[in-house]
């Protein structure tokens, strides 16, 4: 028993309570609030696990942007939908849990290696080979921080595809808005009077977020941070500014918007193709330039992530289909 165990156990318990509450709260608004709190607890747990970059991303996306998204969606939904959905999903979930646990039990009983070889013995021969390989290769990667080296050099192909995931999600969202006609009724939301205070506060907050985002991006090469965290903070700034009406609508018809959405993936892919044609192979950065290439990829990726995330959260008809 160490003293650290107490906060850890509290956090784990809190996480379970939040999850339960978010699933079974009688009111939709309560469930949403609990879900946001759930995101915050997850972020705290990541921080406890010494993964500050994940904690940042979780807090920004899991709690912040998802929260805005949920509230937006809740406004558009009729109230009675909630009840129907719950009963149906409840039985489905129950049946699934029963089947899954039965399968799992059968699976375990079928096999005696749990007791012979043992789960616990395996940990001794679990050599973190990949970890040592990665640590040894970090000096050649062009950055100092191992996580950044993994993300943008050793497994850069994964990151490139992940950027595409975000882009494709936006492509899917665009299909939900029929093209052509745009109704003006939805465009002018009436803000309550108290929003003046909100916009004043946003004027203070947004620059802070932008500065923090820039700092995270710059710091990414030597410490936890990087394009994704920076991008999500910038997206948060954009979302707040947009919600308070300080930022003009992000119109898909503008070339600059489209350019910033695809810039990250396009530049990354161009680097990959260029290294394949003129260099040593697909995504093999030339040694001397790898640091420079990585930071430029990160800058473009940050821009794309920020714009794409904010469009995913607050993109409306007039943003995506004009």
């Amino acid at each position, binding site marked *: 028993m160490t003293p650290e165990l107490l906060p850890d156990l509290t956090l784990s318990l809190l996480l379970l309570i939040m999850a339960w509450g978010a699933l079974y709260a009688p009111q939709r608004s309560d469930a949403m609030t609990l879900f*946001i709190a759930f*995101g*915050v607890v997850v972020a705290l747990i990541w921080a406890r696990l010494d993964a500050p970059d994940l904690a940042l991303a979780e*807090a920004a996306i899991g*709690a*912040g942007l998802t*929260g*805005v998204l949920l*509230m*937006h969606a*809740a*406004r558009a939904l009729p109230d009675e939908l909630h009840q129907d959905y719950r009963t149906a999903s409840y039985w489905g979930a129950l049946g699934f849990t029963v089947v899954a646990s039965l399968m799992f039990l059968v699976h375990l009983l079928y096999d005696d290696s749990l007791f012979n070889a043992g789960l616990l013995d395996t940990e001794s021969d679990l050599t973190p080979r990949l970890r040592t390989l990665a640590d040894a290769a970090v000096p050649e990667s062009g950055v100092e921080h191992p996580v950044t080296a993994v993300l943008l050099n050793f497994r850069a192909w994964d990151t490139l595809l992940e950027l595409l995931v975000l882009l494709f999600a936006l492509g899917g969202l665009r299909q939900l808005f029929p093209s052509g006609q745009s109704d003006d009724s939805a465009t002018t*939301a*009436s*803000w*309550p*009077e*108290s*929003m003046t*205070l*909100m916009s004043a*506060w*946003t004027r*203070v*907050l947004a620059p*802070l977020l932008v500065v923090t985002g820039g700092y995270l991006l710059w710091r990414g090469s030597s410490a936890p941070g990087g394009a994704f965290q920076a991008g999500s903070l910038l997206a*948060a700034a954009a*979302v*707040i500014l947009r*919600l*308070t009406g300080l930022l003009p609508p992000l119109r898909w018809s503008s070339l600059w918007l489209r350019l910033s959405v695809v810039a990250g993936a396009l530049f990354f892919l161009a680097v990959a193709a260029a290294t394949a044609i003129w260099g040593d192979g697909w995504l093999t950065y030339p040694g001397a330039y790898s640091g420079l290439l990585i930071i430029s990829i990160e800058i473009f990726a940050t821009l794309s992530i920020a714009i794409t995330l904010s469009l995913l959260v607050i993109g409306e008809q007039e943003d995506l289909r004009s």
Partner: protein
Amino acid sequence: MINTITDVLGWSFMLAGSAFFVTAALGLLRFPDLYSRLHAVTKTDTLGLGLLALGLALLDPSWRSCLILLLVWMLVMASGAVNCQLLARFNLEQEEGRHGGDGHQTGESDDA
């Protein structure tokens, strides 16, 4: 000697801060209406966090961490105050006019 004094001071500030948080939670649960609840939460939050930050600064008296703690405290205090005002004003508007505005829901989640 100095060390122990600052340690004791630091820990007692932190304890006092935590006590304020407990009262905040109690107030949130027990107070009758929105305004008094907001009062309980924001006032004790500001004070409680201030005491916590002060205590932590005493325990780790390097300039860097002191500055960071001060910044954290100020940011949380400011956002707490703004959120309190937003909620209260919005509620007041609703009570007075019963018109306009569903923008409040999106407004309050920005600091999450």
